Each structure stands twice: as C-alpha cells, then as structure tokens.
C-alpha cells in the first residue's frame, strides 16, 4: 500500500497486532493478579471466569505475555538504547510535562520516557516470569523450597506493581500525546507529528523516502 505523502509509517501491522494482544493479555493479567493481591480487587477475578479460573489462567496468560513481549522487545532493543539528545530531553522533563515541546531537542523513534517504559517492562516481566514460575501451582512450586517461594511471591508482587505503574504511565502518555493512539491503531503518524515528537526519526524516515524516490 502506498502511504500518502504526509504520513509516515510508525508501526507495522504485526507490531500493532502484537501490541494489542499484549495489551489485552496484560490487562487480564493485571486484573486477575490484583484480585489475588488485595481483597479489594478480588471481584476482578471474575474477569477470567471466577477466582479458580483466574488462578488457573493467570500463569498461562503470563507465559503468553512473556512470549509476545520479548518477541517484540528483542526487535526493538536497538531503538531503546540511550540515544542522542536523550539526556538533554530528560533534563528538560519539566518542559515535557508542561507541553513546551518546542523547547525540546529532537529525538529518535522513542523518547527517553518510552525507553524507560521499555526497560522497566523488560526487567519487571523477566522478574514476573521467574518468580511466577517459582510460585506456580500445581506445576512448579513443589520443586522449590518454601522460603524461596515466599521471596518469589513478594518479588512477583513488587514486579507486578512496577509493571502496572509503568503501563498506567504508558497508557496516560498515549492519551496525552494526541496522535499516538492512532499510530498504534492505524500504524501511521503525520509527518508533522513525527517531526514534532521524534525529529530525528522523522528526518531519517524522510531521507529514506527520498532515497527510495531517487533510483
């Protein structure tokens, strides 16, 4: 499909499918996990068909999330390394929050906030996986000593907390930065959006387009 001239492709269909699958899985995981975490959220266990089904499905969904997430994360690892202007951007986080975007340096495909989300999830999901396996009944918990299970349980809770907070921030950011949601639903952003939020990435894309048009 030929993209209109004023648009840039930001996320491929595969990326988008992956993202939204993950998003659903994550929500289910978070809701069911919260149900076991605090009695106030116990009613959320019904989102997975009741508490027993929640207990059964939660770890399997966790494995699905892990597979999807790391499949994606592996492909995006390079884009999430600390890049040019990122430090400067971080120094100006006040401008970011105050929507004084014009004062910010141009950055690559992902801004440091997005990179933080990325690395936060890379770490917390890894810890969730490890601790989750250790406390997974009836399959694996029996092979681990109870003190380790206790540690894993605490670690799982803390990691999940980190992941959930991260996702809350991530979701808010998407709502906050208009055009972002569309990039993940339809896959494209306007050239202006790209230049505005991810200047370096926009230029790179535009150069690539130019090279393509000059055989």
């Amino acid at each position, binding site marked *: 499909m030929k*993209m209109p001239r004023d648009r*840039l*492709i930001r996320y491929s269909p595969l*990326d988008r499918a992956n993202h939204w699958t993950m998003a659903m899985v994550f929500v289910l995981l978070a809701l069911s996990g919260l*149900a*076991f*975490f*605090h*009695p*106030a*959220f*116990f009613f959320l266990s019904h989102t997975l068909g009741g*508490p*027993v089904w929640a*207990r*059964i499905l939660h770890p399997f969904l966790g494995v699905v999330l892990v597979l999807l997430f790391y499949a994606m994360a592996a*492909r*995006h690892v390079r884009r999430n390394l600390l890049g*040019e202007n990122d430090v400067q951007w971080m120094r100006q986080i006040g401008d970011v929050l*105050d*929507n004084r*975007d*014009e*004062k910010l*340096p*141009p950055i690559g*495909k992902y801004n440091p906030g997005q990179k933080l989300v990325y690395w936060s999830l890379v770490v917390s999901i890894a810890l969730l996986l490890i601790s989750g396996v250790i406390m997974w009944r*009836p399959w694996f*918990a029996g092979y681990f000593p*109870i*003190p380790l299970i*206790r540690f894993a*349980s*605490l670690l799982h*809770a803390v990691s999940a*907390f980190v992941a*959930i907070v991260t996702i*809350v*921030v991530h979701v808010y950011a998407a*709502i*906050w*930065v*208009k055009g972002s949601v569309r990039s993940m639903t339809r896959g*494209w952003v*306007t*050239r*202006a*959006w790209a*230049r*505005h*939020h991810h200047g*370096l990435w926009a*230029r*790179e*894309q535009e*150069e*690539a*387009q130019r*090279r*393509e048009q000059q055989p």
Partner: protein
Amino acid sequence: MINSQNIIARSATTTEPPQVRSHVEEVAKLIDVSKCIGCKACQVACMEWNDLRDDVGECHGTYDNPTDLTAESWTVMRFSEHESADGNLEWLIRKDGCMHCAEPGCLKACPAPGAIVQYANGIVDFDSNHCIGCGYCITGCPFDIPRISPKDQKSYKCTLCSDRVNAGMEPACVKTCPTNCIEFGTKTDMLARAEKRVGDLKALGFRDAGIYDPAGVGGTHVMYVLHHADDPNRYSGLPKDPRISPLVGAWKGVTKPIMSAIIGITAFAGVIHYMTKGPKEEPEDSPEEEHRATRDGGVPPASLGYDATRRRPGAGRNADDRPQGEDR
C-alpha cells in the same frame, strides 16, 4: 466451653467480622509427646472421620507412613531416632499437623475471601468451596502444613474437627488416642495441664521439659509438651521459633495498601495532569516544522540528523534497504 463457631477472622476480608461472641473460650489440643507411642490411631481416626483415604503407598525404610502430610493425610506421625552424645537413644515420635496458630500465616496469605476462617474458639478452618488452589496458604504457613490435593487443586489441612467441636465432642484424634497423649479442652485448662506434665517430666529428670506454644505466631491452639523443649528441632524438625516470615509479612502486609495506593495515585495524577496541562495536541503539518530543530538548537541540520552510518556503521546500511518506516 464451645459456642457457635462464629468467625473472628476471614481470609482476604478487610472488614470486621462479627465479634459479639468474643467471650467464647479458646480451645486447644495438647499433645504430650512423652506419652506418644506412635501408634497412628490418630491418623486413622482422622481419615475415617473426615472420609479421607490416602494412597496405599510404599515402605521407604522407616515407620513413617504416609511419609508426609497430604491433602488426605491431615496428620502424620513423624519418627526420629535421636542419639545423644552419651549414647542414650531416644525414639521421639511427634504427631504433625496444623497448629491452629492464633495468628495464622495461611489466613494472612490467602487471597480468597472466606477460604480460610478462624473461629472465636481459635480453630483455623479451610473451606474448600471457597479455595481457589493458589497455594498461598502453603507459602504463608510457618509450619509447612497445608497441602494442595492433586485431585481437585484445593488446599486441605486439619480442621481440628470443627464439626465435632461444634457438636460438643472432642476431635477424632483426641478421642481415639489410646495413651491419652492427645487431650482437648479450653486453652487455659490445657496450659494448666501442660504445666503439670512439664513438672512430671522434670521430676523424671527431663530438665529441659517445656510447653511448645510459640509466641511468634501468637501462640497456637495445638500445643506440645516436649521433654526437650530447648531443642524442638529434634522432633523431626519442629521449628524452634516459628513466626510468619517477614517476606510474607511484606507481601501480604504493608505492600498491599501502599502499592495499591500508588497505582491509584499514578492514574489519578494522569487525570490531574490532563486537566491542568492538557494534551499534546496533534501538530499541524507545516513546512516550518522541518526547521524547528535548527532554530532551537542552533545546530546545523546535518549534524542533528539521525545519521546512523556515522554512529553505528552496520545499522545505517541496513536502513537503506528497509521498506518505509519499518523497523525490524
């Protein structure tokens, strides 16, 4: 002695349970290890009364059978041959099972409302209809007591025969015990009885005799009289100073409200931010945009450009081959 088994604590419940019967006397089971002959009558009576039948297992070279607690063996005898430095051999036999802690780690850890309850008389009971099989009770228990059934994935343990106690009878193990090594009554009476037995044992030369009613879990409603209370570990690993692990405390204690609050606050902060600062609106597609970086940074566009070839040689070349906007 035993009133209606009103519930004073209930798993995964944040509101107060009914407390009007708080004058109900606490009950306790006292196991006088010095009188135990390890006959396993308690094991059999427990299975019989509770309609349980564990698997017919194998002999593993000891008298212990079944070798561990299971969802169908709520109590087992643990045999230990202890030889002291002077060659004195003792065959120490301990009935293992739920201790019915005053501060039950299982109840603290359980996420399913009402799957674990504590009655006013001190009995900690599992309600399998509410159990979700997560095993948190196992994680929470300082004595390694609850077991998940491989048949239904629900957790089980001794109920202190709450049904019998409610009907004014003693638990099945207590009633059957041939040597009266297991007794049952109010906790006050049982403590007095235990004191008496400790005195007897001291008179017989067991200087370290004592009562096992560990304070770390707020005391228990199953207590032991031990001839070697200084070293409970000698009785097949009875923990010396059991308490709910600080890890479990952290997991099911402070972290719960704090982390829940932070999640809520984070979301709420977003709302506030949106209300005060508003969104980053979608920029208009204007030619000036292309030069914003130059203006702001005062840096020549070329040097600000994302020049992958200069920084990462391999990546730049590949970028040329890429379809538009696609990352791999």
